[in-house]
């Protein structure tokens, strides 16, 4: 296991080499957060409510800080796998005594953790300036710290599968685009699930998208135990299901052609 941890560290170090580029994304974060702050302010004022979907305006902005940081920290997992397959670079990975999926997990997780930390740091400053500090509880932080790595792992399994589709498809960018947009919309990036129509909520809570975005963010701002347990369970089950799928698909894929340069 030590080697994968070291791969993650190396990935962070490599990422630090062009920190400016990573950091430039946070400008976008500032714009998004400011626009949504204005929109929610109007919404709260117009509806004369102090709480929407169980969240105050302050909680809503902090919720957005977390969801945006999760979404914006996404490494290009599917593209990396797709390229490895398409260009035959996968060969270089396979001649090493390590597992390719775990290597990719380590590499992209390192990248994501760094990127998330940076986004979250900048997002927090913006939130502190506009709405002030959140009433955080230690248990909420603990829940968040447990759900977040699982959220990243779950997101990874799905993107990795999409990347593996390159063994069969000419182009996987379409799938990546669809999945990423679904994560944003159905995962509750901009609007918490509670504000979706009743009928939808049931479905959205079962789908993996909410376990990636909504779950960790909501746990962070509310510290709700029930929510934590159900999201945790949902994440674990989904990760197991997708890991098994990866095993099957990956083994099938390895038997397939990759004749590039051969």
């Amino acid at each position, binding site marked *: 296991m030590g080697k994968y941890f070291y791969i993650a560290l190396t990935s962070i170090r490599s990422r630090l080499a062009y920190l400016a580029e990573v950091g430039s994304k946070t400008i976008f974060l500032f714009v998004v957060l400011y626009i949504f702050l204005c929109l929610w302010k109007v919404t709260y004022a117009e509806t004369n409510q102090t709480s929407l979907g169980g969240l105050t305006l302050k909680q809503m902005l902090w919720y957005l800080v977390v969801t945006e940081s999760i979404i914006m920290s996404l490494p290009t997992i599917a593209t990396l796998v797709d390229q490895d397959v398409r260009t035959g670079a996968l*060969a270089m990975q396979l*001649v090493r*005594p390590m597992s390719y999926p775990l290597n990719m997990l380590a590499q992209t997780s390192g990248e994501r953790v760094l990127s998330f930390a940076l986004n979250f740091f900048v997002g927090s400053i913006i939130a502190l300036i506009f709405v002030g500090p959140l009433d955080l509880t230690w248990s909420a932080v603990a829940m968040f710290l447990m759900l977040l790595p699982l959220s990243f792992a779950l997101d990874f399994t799905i993107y990795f599968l999409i990347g593996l589709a390159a063994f069969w498809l000419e182009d996987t960018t379409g799938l990546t685009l669809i999945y990423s947009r679904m994560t944003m919309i159905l995962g509750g990036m901009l609007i918490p699930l509670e504000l979706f129509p009743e009928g939808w909520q049931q479905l959205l809570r079962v789908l993996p998208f909410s376990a990636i975005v909504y779950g960790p963010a909501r746990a962070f701002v509310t510290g709700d135990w029930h929510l934590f347990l159900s999201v945790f369970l949902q994440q674990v089950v989904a990760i197991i299901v997708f890991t098994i799928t990866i095993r099957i698909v990956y083994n099938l894929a390895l038997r397939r052609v*990759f004749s590039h340069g*051969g």
Partner: protein
Amino acid sequence: MDNAVSVTQLAKNFVLKKRDGIRWTQTQVKAVDGISLSIEKGQSVAFIGPNGAGKSTTIKMLTGILHPTSGEATVLGCIPWKERTKLARRIGVVFGQRSQLWYHLPPADTFELLSKIYEIKKDVFESRRDMLIERFQLSEFLDTPVRKLSLGQRMRAEVACSLLHGPEVIFLDEPTIGLDVIARQELRELIREWNREKGVTVFLTSHDAGDIQHVAKRVIVINHGRVVLDDRVSRVRRQYLSRKVLSVKYADTPESISLDGVKTLKESGHAFRFEVDTLAVSIEKVMSEIMRIGSVVDITIEDPPLEEVIAHIYSAPPAAAAGDEAEEEDDDGEA
């Protein structure tokens, strides 16, 4: 004999999909068509062939990346595609067109990472790394990000990377591609040194005749997925040395030459290139004939370059691969 690599009737078919109007048709392409060979431990072998001959496919099967369609192979006693991870610790692989170095990090960081991946003991790693740094002269750019290295520097680091875990067999797939003359010579020298001094078995593919001549003792030529020649490099050269190439420049248009064993390769103005089969006709006879037919201004006699020898072998038609004409080729040389 202790073999590092043994291959028996190894074959790999690829399915090629073609669009025929709106229908897709599938055709089987035999990338590797039943090759057999064995390589003793400590040997240096050049595995050559034209593009699409099946070289890389074979290397990929021998390193466990590809599953063969049929046939058997063992590398250091392991079946590569079944024991890939186990074998990976004992072999080194360099794909000249792919990098294993982290682009934004200095080579030193990749070395460190590889030591973790291969689980090399710290003291073993450090002494081996220092030796490689010294031999491959890496110290001047060891801490420079890879993106700022020249191709020659990068390739030296690449090869060093693949030796870090002390492999017993090293597969080099076009390691000198794109390198300048000096960088190429340096790299060849290093590979040869490693083979001779450390006894590492070298399995090299290249399109560069110089690589083959300077690094390998044995050459295996593969074409259309089959082995068409397997012999010592020196003998392959010697066989073809029975042919000489004569470049002759005349003062004016000479009579045409008609001698058995003399072939006109090129003719432009008053300049001629003849290929002489010295087994069929003596050089002396040819020379006097050349002098007789016209007034000679200049003349040079050369051995055919290895490159031409290879081109000659490659140009054998597919049916000849393991059949009659391949044998004929052998006869040619040995006769």
